[in-house]
């Protein structure tokens, strides 16, 4: 019985809070994909009283969509406002001066909203030794094999190390 194996590859099952979004899906759902640097964050309330944060990015490259300004604003629920605070698990977090690639749709106010919460943001990081910048989000990308963390990693074919340039080319191909 065991001699005749038919191996079924069903992939990872995801009935958890997040289903991994591929780059194709992220790109397709986005009005704007850009590489930028965080220059400011501000917190306010909307008309219904919701606390939200606006993240200002200095645009370094636009990979999808058209922007006339050199800065881009995206919004997300949560933040600290006076003595009140909002937290959003799986919300993308942004640090000042951090470089990131963001996949955003535009809401009715014309502000960017990251696709799939944190999945719409890729951190850009350096790996040293004159190697190109790499990117990763919660599920995709990561450091190269020479990186110290690689020893504890296992990757599926769709979860290879990813450089910033590779991500850019993939997005560009998806938008053609």
């Amino acid at each position, binding site marked *: *019985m*065991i001699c*005749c*194996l*038919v*191996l079924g*590859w*069903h*992939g*990872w*099952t*995801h*009935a*958890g*809070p*997040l*289903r991994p*979004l591929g780059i194709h899906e992220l790109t397709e*759902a986005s009005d704007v994909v850009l590489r930028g640097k965080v220059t400011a964050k501000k917190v306010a309330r*909307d008309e*219904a*009283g*919701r*606390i*939200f944060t606006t993240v200002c990015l200095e645009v370094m490259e636009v990979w999808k969509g058209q922007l006339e300004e050199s800065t881009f604003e995206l*919004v997300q*629920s*949560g933040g600290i406002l006076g*003595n*009140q*605070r*909002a*937290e*959003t*698990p*799986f*919300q993308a*977090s942004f640090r000042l001066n951090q470089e990131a690639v963001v996949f955003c*749709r535009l*809401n009715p106010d014309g502000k960017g*909203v*990251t*696709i*799939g*919460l*944190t*999945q*719409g943001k890729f951190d850009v990081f350096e790996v040293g030794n004159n190697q190109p910048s790499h990117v*990763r989000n919660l*599920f*995709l990308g*990561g450091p190269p094999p020479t990186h110290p*963390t690689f020893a*504890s*990693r*296992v*990757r*599926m*074919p769709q*979860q290879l190390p990813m450089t910033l340039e590779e991500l850019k080319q993939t997005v560009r191909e998806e938008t053609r």
Partner: protein
Amino acid sequence: MRQYHFKQRRWLGWSACGLLAAMPLWAFVSNYNERGQHQYWFKPGSSGFVSPNVMQYTSRTIKYYLDPNGFSEAGKQRELDAIRTAFDQWQQIPDSRLHFEEAGFVSGKPEVNLFDNTNTIFWEKESFLVNGGLDDIRGSLGLTFRAFFDDFNLVEADIVFNGLERQWTTDYVSPAFNAIFVEAVALHEIGHLIGMEHATIGSSTMMWQARPGLNSQLDLSADDIAFVQTYYPADGLSDKLGTLQGQVELGGEGVLGAVVLLEDTQGNLIRGTISHPVNQQWQQGFYQMTAVPPGDYLVRVCPLDHHLASQFLINGPVIDYFRFPEPTTDFQPSEPVAISIQARKTTEQRLSLQPGSAAFRILGIQPRVRDLSLLTLERSTAQITQGDQDIWVGFYGENLPSEGDGVVVGIRGSGIETKIKQYRESLFGDLDAWLIQLSVETDALPGPRSFFIQDQDGIAYANGFLHVEPRSPDTNQDGLNDIFQRSHFAHWTGEQAAPSQDPDGDRYTNLEEYQAGSVPTQASSTPISVLPPFSLLEVEVSQDGASILFESQPGQRYQLHGRHDAAEGPWTVRGEPVTAEGPTTQILDPSTTELNTFYRVEVLSR
């Protein structure tokens, strides 16, 4: 102008994670502020500021509103019933004081808004953009948004299910492939609503993910129950239970994000929690488990998967994206330490670790299969049942040790006999597999077990990623088999499903119908409509299936039913109804080719 009900400082949160309580008490995984105040409902003092439309402090009741549209037009009643059932399960936890009240239906289009003094539960079916256009929930299954004061007293919550890119089902007998089982996800999200975070045990309802359809999230684990008993206890319960706490340390330093596991003396997993970052209340690496029944236990420590690992079972960010973004993982799993818990006392136990990186890790699970002809790779718990014989489970990982060289592969815990163990190299991509054939004792303790693999370089675990299901579950302790109730009632914890009820009006109670094997929601199906066993004349098994010969009345219609246990479990329909043409009739059950099924024949109405 909008009136804000809240008069205190208020923090807002929304999540697919959970939160907790006031004193520094917990097991499981909780949320807390910098003063060590945990997040939960009904905190004295601040609770007086919460809208009575959201909760009632004196009765410990949280109110909720459902969107009457459910997920689907055809199934909305069952879908809403499944949510009600999930609430029932949480409030039926023994020795607890937590109540929910369905206060009504949402009027108009539901929306996430933590300032409307309404706990709203709904399926979003029109747009991924929710919460006033602030969040895109694409890829999410369900999200629980929570609001809380600065003392972390919960004051409002909304739950949204993704109705745009997922299919949902309430069919317990034959759930559609890859459809999400409403009750399981509702149970999970309600766990967040009352304050829980994602768990460190694979089979917990609060595990960050599970397989679609029926899964191990469907029944509350000891971990989940302990949370409610800790933060919503019945009077006097705390006098009966004890606490374990201490620090996880490595080289004299507190360790952030180490998984601490509590087992009984046979290695059966009971609880899991995580060591916490420093704050005003405790040191780095502090851990605590509360509501522990007195007795002797083992406690051990394991690392989470690395936060940069693309494949993982549980890593820091999926437990709490903000609190454990980069937990410490470069240490070896510890040896179990024997401890003793006494009622009303706190047992202090420092847990020291040895440095080192794991030589291998378990990164995937092979769910239960009868044979090895179809293997799948999952990240969710493998479920086995008391009395299972010769079934296969297993696990996957990169560079797993093969046979020989002192390699030990097994299952930690009691009541499971492991038989054949097979190593397969590079079964899925670079992932090696260990497949284990096992049998489960009929009286094996229900609950989680842990896979492990060990060689001279170290040991790796998959904690709680194997779960023993009871053969005849009765989690709501009403005296009726849950499987029977779930098979026939969407709101199986409700009054209609109670043992003494007769919802189809055929003068037979649900209990009588269960014992006879008839259908409790169909008046034409009664205990007397089932043929007596001696009417079954012959059962023959061939490659085509099992054929059953029985005494019949010409012109009468019959339906075959089968199950795998003579005394317990739900009957399922086998084959098509047939009309008898003579004094004996034969029905084929094409789904069975082994002699492991018990049959009955139902007499259908003409």
